[in-house]
């Protein structure tokens, strides 16, 4: 029976385990960049063969024009504008104007302006009847287009700022339509069927028509 055990402890010393784990942790902390798959989405118009701008076919009052020159100065609806933040409210009012709502069903959703109006909550309807409905502005959401024309020399920064404001206006419309704030609407998870249904209902008949027009080559 040669069971000469040594008296020493047989455990592995785990005291420095935390240090080793810390080292690894710090390595991953430093090298990690949590993937940023967020941004402003935009759907480009399809490639058009005849190269005919859409604006010509549209009634001028249905187009909300934003122009930016090479010095990053704005011209909104042919009036100079200093503060980009004002665009959000202007676009909100423009899209929901219902100046001359048509009965013709348009687009993939087969919704007319009148149909869209009937789906709006009471608070939006009263806002529209009180403040909007101008004959000078858009006929209704199905025909409203926002046209953004940036000069080649204007900066990307201002472009993003404007695009952000436009998205804010549309998100506010969509959100209010289904009783959410703009932020809640934006965070809807479209993998969840219930939330997808809400998303579809909010967007039905109000297309996000943001057109990035071909810029002028001349600096202005």
């Amino acid at each position: 029976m040669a069971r000469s055990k040594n008296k020493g402890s047989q455990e592995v010393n785990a005291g420095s385990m935390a240090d080793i784990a810390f080292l690894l942790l710090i390595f991953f902390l430093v090298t990690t960049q949590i993937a940023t798959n967020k941004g402003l989405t935009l759907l480009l118009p399809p490639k058009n063969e005849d190269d005919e701008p859409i604006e010509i076919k549209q009634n001028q009052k249905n187009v909300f024009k934003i122009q930016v020159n090479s010095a990053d100065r704005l011209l909104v609806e042919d009036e100079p504008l200093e503060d980009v933040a004002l665009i959000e409210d202007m676009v909100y009012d423009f899209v929901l104007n219902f100046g001359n709502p048509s009965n013709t069903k348009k687009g993939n959703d087969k919704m007319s302006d009148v149909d869209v109006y009937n789906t709006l909550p009471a608070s939006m309807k009263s806002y529209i009847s009180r403040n909007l409905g101008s004959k000078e502005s858009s006929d209704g959401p199905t025909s409203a287009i926002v046209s953004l024309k940036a000069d080649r020399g204007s900066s990307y920064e201002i472009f993003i700022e404007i695009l952000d404001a436009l998205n804010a206006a549309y998100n506010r419309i969509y959100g209010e339509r289904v009783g959410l704030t703009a932020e809640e609407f934006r965070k809807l998870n479209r993998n969840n069927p219930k939330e997808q249904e809400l998303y579809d209902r909010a967007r039905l008949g109000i297309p996000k028509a943001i057109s990035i027009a071909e810029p002028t080559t001349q600096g202005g």
Partner: protein
Amino acid sequence: MSKFKKKSTSSQDIPTAALPDIIFMLLFFFMVTTVLRETEIKVEQRIPRAEQLVKLEKKKLVTYLYVGKPKDKSLGTEPLIQANDAFIGIENIVQWINEEKSKLAENERDQITVSMKVDNETKMGIIVDIQTELREANARKIMYATPQKTEDN
């Protein structure tokens, strides 16, 4: 004085036996969420912030374009376009998109999304040129990748 000297006899050490476990948990979190950078970015990237961000659901369908001034000063100061590992010219974008599309399953090819990471000093001219080429290549879904705007800036 003796009234205040009634110290409790219990040990004042915080037990640290669970420390390695906590650290390991953090470690695993970071190991799982880490995506090691596949491409080295060769252009300057200070991306303007925005508020109304949308999250892209299908990561597989996203390809990235980086636009900005080259970091390597010998390449000049004009903004360049980087796709994957190399600089490409405007005229090669259609070809590059077609290559990226061929990597996807056939029914998903039309849904390809191009995420553009653009430096904030870039002028719109090059962006518009890229958009024209993307329309030509029938990659119509684009995203301007931006970080979330925080309260203070």
